């Protein structure tokens, strides 16, 4: 009796082959220190997903959370993007800019709610600024980084901040109103595109 031999598919062998191919990555030249190239090289080696944070709120406590997650994600070598929209966009206006907008309604909106990362209000217990002031004091006392420090750290770690074009138009914000290092403005399709590709979305 003869046994017919036929080519077989061995998933384990395939997987080992694929892994051995990946081991070449260890010989890659030194990775650049910051920016998306570094993060994407880490992605290839470890198949990490990207993180996409949608920063919708401009409230101090939510902005704080978004920036803690963004800077930590950047520090973990994960490619991180923060899409900043609506109230969240006001956070990324320069602290020094007081009134923004082209017409009286836009100007009034910025007058009623001061833009900039250092001028956030709490969603509750704001008490005309007493709440945020106490939060700031407590943060300093317990060695917690301020939103401003976290924003700077995140940018240094290559986190991309993408402003929402629609919100920029509606609030009459110009690129020159925004902090340095912001990405190109984009819209909802960019966000959905990233979500369907390799990004874990987080709406804050």
């Amino acid at each position: 009796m003869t046994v017919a031999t036929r080519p077989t598919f061995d998933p384990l062998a395939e997987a080992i082959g694929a892994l051995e191919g990946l081991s070449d990555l260890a010989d890659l030249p030194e990775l650049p220190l910051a920016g998306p190239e570094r993060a994407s090289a880490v992605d290839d080696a470890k198949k990490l997903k990207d993180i996409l944070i949608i920063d919708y709120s401009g409230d101090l406590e939510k902005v704080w959370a978004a920036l803690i997650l963004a800077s930590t994600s950047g520090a973990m070598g994960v490619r991180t993007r923060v899409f900043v929209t609506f109230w969240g966009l006001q956070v990324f206006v320069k602290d020094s800019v007081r009134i923004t907008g082209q017409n009286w309604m836009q100007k009034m909106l910025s007058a009623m709610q001061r833009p900039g990362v250092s001028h956030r209000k709490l969603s509750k217990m704001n008490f005309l600024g007493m709440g945020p002031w106490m939060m700031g004091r407590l943060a300093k006392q317990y060695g917690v980084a301020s939103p401003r420090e976290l924003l700077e750290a995140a940018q240094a770690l290559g986190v991309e901040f993408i402003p929402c074009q629609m919100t920029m138009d509606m609030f009459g914000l110009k690129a020159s109103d925004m902090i340095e290092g912001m990405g190109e403005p984009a819209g909802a399709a960019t966000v959905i595109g990233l979500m369907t590709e390799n990004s874990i979305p987080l709406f804050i």
Partner: protein
Amino acid sequence: MPIVKTAQAVRTLASGAAVELLATDPGSTKDVAAWCRVTGHELLEQSVEGTVFRFVIRRK
């Protein structure tokens, strides 16, 4: 922000070099382990001295 500072410090190291991290955040025990797991850098030593959490990390 122990993790952010650690990431910044490890970036300045050559491959195989180590850095010592001193943190006062009790959460750093779990966070540093998670950071090492994701980034692939090696946690060589870990100890607690009073309120200070000490870690030694080697860059991969």
